[in-house]
Structures are given as structure tokens and as C-alpha cells.
């Protein structure tokens, strides 16, 4: 088992733990912050996986996940101020 494999399993375990805050967050911004961090961790895991299996498509998927994270946070920010 290589170091990248251990790293991926550790990061995925962290993001699964973080899903508790998504389910049980007291307010909506807590859930948004937790989801944003989950997608950042998932994008890092996809980058490590792309390095591991030597396939370049997963880097593009990681980029798409990071972009969707950014757009989600901006859309929520506009929504909560009543501008959307």
C-alpha cells in the first residue's frame, strides 16, 4: 500500500466525518461551509487519484468540482442577502 493510497483513505474518512456537520449543523451557513470543505477535500482526493492511476481526466474533474464549489458559495451568498 503506497503513501498516496493511505493519504486518500485518510482524506475520505475526514470528509465522511465532516458530513455529520452537514446533517446536524445548527444554521444554514454551517452546512454551506461544511459542504464547501467536503468538495475541496474531494478535489484534492481526485488529484491524488489522478496521480496514482496516471489518468489526466481526473484532474479536470477536480477542477470542475472546485469551480462548482466556488459558484455554490457565491450563489448562496447572493441568495441570503435577497439579491437572487
Amino acid at each position: 500500500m503506497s503513501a498516496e493510497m493511505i493519504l486518500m483513505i485518510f482524506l475520505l474518512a475526514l470528509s465522511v466525518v465532516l458530513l455529520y456537520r452537514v446533517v446536524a449543523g445548527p444554521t444554514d451557513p454551517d452546512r454551506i461551509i461544511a459542504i464547501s470543505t467536503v468538495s475541496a477535500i474531494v478535489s484534492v482526493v481526485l488529484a491524488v487519484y489522478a496521480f496514482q492511476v496516471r489518468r489526466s481526466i481526473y484532474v479536470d474533474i477536480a477542477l470542475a468540482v472546485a469551480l462548482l464549489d466556488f459558484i455554490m458559495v457565491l450563489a448562496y451568498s447572493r441568495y441570503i442577502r435577497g439579491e437572487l
Partner: protein
Amino acid sequence: MQYIVWFLYVVGAFFNFAGVVGILRMPDPYCKLQTSTKNITLGGISIMLGLFVNEIYLGLFPSFGLKFLLLSLFMLITNPTASHVLARSIYYAGFPLWHKSVTDHLKARKEAEQRG
């Protein structure tokens, strides 16, 4: 060279762990935003730097590593922007600070804007 790669991996894993603990334990959304920013900038980017160094160490042309650097540059630009916008808008939307918070520099400006 291998030790540099392992050091970057361990730093990334540690900061991801610390950020997740902060998000689980911090009392209000503003503190959670602060820990989440540390999580992405130090955790993710040091892991990607470790992958870049590892690819050079393996003797390959860093085609993946350059894409990882571009991805981390993108994260480095967008993540503080998103955190700042989110913090400001949830402040203006009226989410309260934690009851033990000591400073609130934005309060006077918000009241001045509300008075017109």
C-alpha cells in the same frame, strides 16, 4: 527528496485534520469559515506540491504536476474570495456572532448604512 514528499503529505494531512476538527467544534459560522480557509490553503496546496515534487523525483516530466499547480493557483484565488463574500453576506443577513466574541468592527458601518 523522498523525505520532502512525505513531509508535504504529512503537513497536508495534518492541516486537513485540524480544519475538520475546527469545523466540527467551532461555535459560530465565522470561526468555522476561518478554519475552513486554513484547511484548503495549507492542506490542499501542500498535498499538491508534494505530488509535484514526487513526479519530479520519479524522473518524469511533471505534466500532472503542472496541472496540480494550476489547480492550486485556482483554489488560492477563489477560496479566500468565496469565504470573504460568504462571511460578509451572512453578517449583513443578521446571523449573530458568538456571545463571547469581543470585537465587531463592521457593526458601526452596518448601522450607518441602515440609517441611510
